[in-house]
């Protein structure tokens, strides 16, 4: 309904130099080798090391992320991480000089699918990265498969993307909706938390999360005190649903909300006095990124499960958080890490693939094995989507504001 206006994207000097550099290298490559896509067959090049420069020439990557609409903050994090990775790696992926084409995904498939088709057809990109919205990812699956180009989804969490609607060309560096909450369900059941009330926004992702949580929780002999799905995007007063929690006799509440709804819910949960009597648990997106600024003190003590936290204790994460903070004056989010890792796996796969065809890159992605240097900890592709560690996180007051501290490593989980 809203007319979409692209926010201004001032090009930094660094970006400008990067693009100019890409142009000149590409020209040299063409002149010297008489073709842009010859090299890259540097099989013995250690993965992750791009300094050798496989002589691969240019590669065009389409970064399709939301630049307008409610998901814009996620798009910014994703673009930041992508640019940071390129900057730290001389603008190269697997020996190829990267030219990034950014397209606006918007809020839903009505804008997202044409954006993907646009970069495939008009810009003739070699690889696609991005996609926040699951409906967009599913809607574009056919176009991507037909074009035989690799798409690395760096957010959208619908199970079907790497499940019943999977494509050999579509990979995911993020998570699966239910995968995020199964570890939490098993943790709560193992700790005899008591009856749990389950709440979520009423849309595809929310339904997947609720179904996944309830199935895992009941399988581990947990009791569901009650559940309700609240109208998506039209609920700003949660009071009517909060009284349902109180009267259900629940010992804990588990919810899935994101963005503005996460802010309102967490605040009202505290205002109506539930936070002190019935502890609040959630999927990690409840307290991830910018929403913490809106929730403030109401979020302190809220526990969530996610595959990332800025507080994960490993060297790669420390270096990543420091570099990200230095560059953007903000803490990275899981959306940033997912895109960072998309660049990481592309880098490895391109260094091994004999050419830039979708089949070659897909095959190389399938043979990557463990990605040992991710800020989220080691992970690997299993069914084209990460098998990774999940962490129990608790919101605490940090030095520069609220952070998600890591309480416990919940173990490794694959797509349920």
């Amino acid at each position, binding site marked *: 309904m809203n007319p979409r206006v692209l926010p201004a994207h001032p090009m930094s000097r660094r970006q400008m130099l990067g693009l100019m550099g890409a142009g000149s290298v590409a020209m040299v490559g063409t002149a010297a080798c008489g073709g842009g896509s010859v090299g890259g067959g540097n099989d013995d090049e250690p993965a992750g090391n791009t300094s050798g420069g496989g002589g691969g020439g240019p590669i065009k990557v389409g970064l399709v992320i939301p630049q307008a609409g409610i998901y814009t*903050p996620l798009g910014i994090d994703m673009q930041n991480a992508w640019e940071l990775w390129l900057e730290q790696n001389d603008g190269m992926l697997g020996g190829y000089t990267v030219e990034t084409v950014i397209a606006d995904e918007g809020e839903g498939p009505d804008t997202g699918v044409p954006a993907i088709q646009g970069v495939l057809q008009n810009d003739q990109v070699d690889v696609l990265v991005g996609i926040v919205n699951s409906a967009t990812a599913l809607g574009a699956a056919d176009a991507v498969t037909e074009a035989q180009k690799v798409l690395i989804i760096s957010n959208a969490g619908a199970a079907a993307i790497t499940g019943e609607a999977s494509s050999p060309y579509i990979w995911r560096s993020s998570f699966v909706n239910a995968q995020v909450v199964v570890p939490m369900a098993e943790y709560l059941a193992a700790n005899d938390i008591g009856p749990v009330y389950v709440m979520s926004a009423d849309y595809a992702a929310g339904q997947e999360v609720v179904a996944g949580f309830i199935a895992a929780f009941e399988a581990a002999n947990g009791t569901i005190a009650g559940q309700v799905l609240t109208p998506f995007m039209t609920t700003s*007063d949660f*009071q*009517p649903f909060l*009284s349902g929690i109180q*009267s259900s006799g629940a010992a804990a509440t588990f919810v899935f909300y994101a963005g503005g709804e996460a802010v309102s819910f967490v605040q009202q949960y505290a205002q*109506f006095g539930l936070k002190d009597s019935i502890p609040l648990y959630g999927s990690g997106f409840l307290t991830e990124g910018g929403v913490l600024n809106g929730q403030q003190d109401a979020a302190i003590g809220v526990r969530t499960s996610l595959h990332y936290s800025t507080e994960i204790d490993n060297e790669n994460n420390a270096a990543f958080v420091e570099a990200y903070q230095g560059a953007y004056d903000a803490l990275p989010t899981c959306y940033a890490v997912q895109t960072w890792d998309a660049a990481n796996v592309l880098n490895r796969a391109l260094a091994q693939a004999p050419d830039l065809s979708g089949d070659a890159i897909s095959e190389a992605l399938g043979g990557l094995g463990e990605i040992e240097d991710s800020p989220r900890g080691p992970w690997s592709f299993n069914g084209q989507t990460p098998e990774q560690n999940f962490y129990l996180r608790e919101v605490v007051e940090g030095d520069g504001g609220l952070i998600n501290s890591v309480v416990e490593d919940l173990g490794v989980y694959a797509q349920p």
Partner: protein
Amino acid sequence: MIVDWFDANLVSILNGFAIGSLLFILAVGLSIVFGMMDVLNLAHGALYLVGAYLGYQFAGDTSSWAGFLTALGTAALVGLLAGGVLSTMTEPLARRPHLDQALLTLGVALVVAELLAIFYGNDVLRVVAPPGLNGSTKVFGDTYPTYRLALIGIGALIAVAVYVVVERTTVGALVRASVADREMVSAVGVDNRRVKLAVLGVGSSLAALAGVLGGPINGAGPGLDERVLILALVVVVIGGLGSIKGAFVGALLIGQVESLGRALVPDLASFVLFGALALVLIVRPRGLFGAPKAAV
């Protein structure tokens, strides 16, 4: 038995009054402007949004009375001015169908909402209630946000003020006279356009005030304008056009439907609002307090 039921649902009922109060402040302006001045102002929701962002601007970081009152004062002023602009813009359309006014004001609303989104970004921003109202209070053993209790009082005050002005003062008589017979009012030497200007100004001002007052509950963010506009239109339709009593009763009714109704049948949460609207339209198409001629 009934006591138990009340005890269990006390918070929801109380909350219904708080939401209803906010809805009244929002909808009464729309009702007067449409019902009395015959201007269908779909920019009403955008004015609420402007108020909400003013709330964030002056009272978004810390809890302070100075910030909150500044936001209220600025919102009242901005609302008055915006009402004046809207009145001027809709003047050439006065003799044309409502659809033309709707298109114009909807266009204004879209532009304003988009400008706000560009300026403030797409995150939902918060507005902090002033000190003293920022916490929670025990009401018969249940915890309830103090600010929402205060909102019930503010809504009642504004209701009384609007009622007294329209029903008991000369200015109010002039407004009512303009509604009853516009030609006769101009015949006795009163400029109709000035009455319209004043009514739109005050109505818009109330919408912007509602935006600040609703800030601690709804925050400020994209899409809020459309949500509140629909609620306000529902209140006006249920209460009846141009009736202050109707807007008051309609707002309280919708407040309860949105609060108690959703609490009692959470699975039908999306439908209770429009279910109530449909019921009123079937039983009494002109609204609960609408004048028969207003039923168009």
